[in-house]
């Protein structure tokens, strides 16, 4: 029953009362009973999949599931495990360990680790190969920490048009944590990298069922030794001052601040110094983006074989409205707080702007406490909607390098780098 109908009923009833026609009023009351007894709509499930249009929801549409050491998260796949973090966890700058998203590539991932047997091996093109136990790692190297965002390269893949095959993530394949461990540079210095070395390769404990020599057998990622990001790489044994959950890479994980998560090797076991460029599947074929300014191309150009591709690297600037999330109608005139967070792989967040008219005009949001250039930066902005109806809140961030989120969408065959301005429809209701 809508508001205008009720208003008419009231006017009619007042008229009836004014005339002293009590019996008429009672008759009206009886007639109104079916309305009073009208059942509200039953809850409905999310669809099992979306498409061919863009996924219209903030998150992916899978069911909630519980995995070991995890809060209920959104299931993408169960073997290997891929889980998405629900939206509300992003109201805070640090994502709890049990809510942190999960993404594995290979089927055989560790269920348990024996720390008496576990060793970190530094091998390849080094003068002094090292085999470090967990206590040696803790004792022999200086502690180091960094707050940094870990985001899957394919986060928000379900937004792309046309849709591409792959993990159909909503926006929740990201998280921010305080990572503590030791510096990669110190370990490489201890192993004494030989002259003429080109790259450093990481591999974890996970293995696949595919044949040897294929990407379905082993997952390895490499970074150039000349890349300045190596000075900031940490091998983390702690996440938010707790051990890493098994699904997030216990006992040791590579942290590459500002870079997409594909380089953040989980359950790290081997560090190999290479004297030539890594040509394994996960570097040569997978996780590559078009060599264009925004990493975007078209299906036609891909088909024509015109697209030069390079390994994915730093994360473009993004921002999100987390609350209100559109699930509740807001009474007109009620002051609410728009809240969310922003981040960039190109230095910290300089500003966040919000629009309550779909992007026609923008105003600056207030930034929350900073936790370093690689962290989530929370923001808020007061909003008192006046007009009943549908409002579109848009949010855009600018990073310290001056990059602002684009209006337009990104498309590439891998479904990477999505960072378009996010929009949220919010219904405002009449209040009288």
């Amino acid at each position, binding site marked *: 029953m809508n508001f205008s109908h009720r208003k008419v009923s009231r006017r009619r009833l007042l008229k009836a009362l004014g005339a002293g026609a*009590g019996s008429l009023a009672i008759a009206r*009351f009886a007639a109104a009973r079916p309305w009073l007894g009208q059942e509200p709509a039953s809850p409905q499930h999310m669809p099992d999949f979306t498409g061919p249009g863009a996924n219209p929801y903030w998150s992916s549409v899978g069911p*909630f599931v519980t995995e070991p050491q995890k809060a209920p998260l959104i299931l993408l796949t169960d*073997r290997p*495990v891929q889980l998405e973090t629900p939206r509300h966890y992003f109201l805070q700058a640090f994502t709890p360990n049990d809510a942190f998203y999960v993404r594995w590539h290979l089927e055989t991932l560790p*269920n*348990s680790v024996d720390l008496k047997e576990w060793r970190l091996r530094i091998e390849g093109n080094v003068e002094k190969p090292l085999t470090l136990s967990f206590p040696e790692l803790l004792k022999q190297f200086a502690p180091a920490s960094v707050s940094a965002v870990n985001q899957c390269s394919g986060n928000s893949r379900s937004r792309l048009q046309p849709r591409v095959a792959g993990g159909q993530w909503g926006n929740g394949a990201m998280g921010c944590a305080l990572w503590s461990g030791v510096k990669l540079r110190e370990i490489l210095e201890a192993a004494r990298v030989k002259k003429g070395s080109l790259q450093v390769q990481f591999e974890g404990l996970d293995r696949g069922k595919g044949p040897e020599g294929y990407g379905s057998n082993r997952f390895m990622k490499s970074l150039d030794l000349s890349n300045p990001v190596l000075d900031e790489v940490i091998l983390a044994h702690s996440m938010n001052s707790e051990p890493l959950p098994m699904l997030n890479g216990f006992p040791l994980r590579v942290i590459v601040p500002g870079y997409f998560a594909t380089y953040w090797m989980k359950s790290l076991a081997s560090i190999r110094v290479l004297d030539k460029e890594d040509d394994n599947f996960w570097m040569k074929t997978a996780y590559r983006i078009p060599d264009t300014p925004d990493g975007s191309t078209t299906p036609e150009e891909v088909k024509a074989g015109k697209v030069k591709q390079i390994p994915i690297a730093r994360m473009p600037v993004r921002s999100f409205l987390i609350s209100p999330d559109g699930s509740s109608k807001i009474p007109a005139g009620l002051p609410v707080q728009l809240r969310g967070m922003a981040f960039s792989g190109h230095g910290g967040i300089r500003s966040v702007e919000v629009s309550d008219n779909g992007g026609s005009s923008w105003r600056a949001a207030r930034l929350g406490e900073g936790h370093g250039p690689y962290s989530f930066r929370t923001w808020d902005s007061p909003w008192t909607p006046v007009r009943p109806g549908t409002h579109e809140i848009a949010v855009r961030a600018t990073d310290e390098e001056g990059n602002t989120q684009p209006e337009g969408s990104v498309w590439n065959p891998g479904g990477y780098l999505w960072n378009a301005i996010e929009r949220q429809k919010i219904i405002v209701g009449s209040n009288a």
Partner: protein
Amino acid sequence: MRHARISAALPKFFAAVVTLLLAASAALYAEFNAGFYSEERMGSIRQTLPAVQSSGVTYDAGAFPLFPPSLPAGTGRDEVKAFCNTCHSPRYITMQPFLPPEVWAAEVNKMIKTYGASIPDDSTERIIHYLETNFSTGTRKQ
């Protein structure tokens, strides 16, 4: 005398009528709608019992649970279960959006050529047929 008694009772009568009307209008203009529960089965998640830990050197998270989706019956389903299942669960299929038939063929060929899946030719054809028939634009059911 009787007339006077009726006159005295009249205000009480009107008061009763007004009270009744007020009650009726209060019910009609209820501030909220309450008391409805749905029979719709939305599912629920049982809490996981914390794993039993020892103080030894082994750090154990336990087994990772499977959540098998139902795959529609049809030609090729057995081959999908036999071959695709080697490296990943069928959730990798059911999670996808509508994909055009040629994209499914490309995906299966990618599994063979790029990932080294060892699938006989006739089984490959049946797998592609199954995916195109059940998971493409226009063929897929919720």
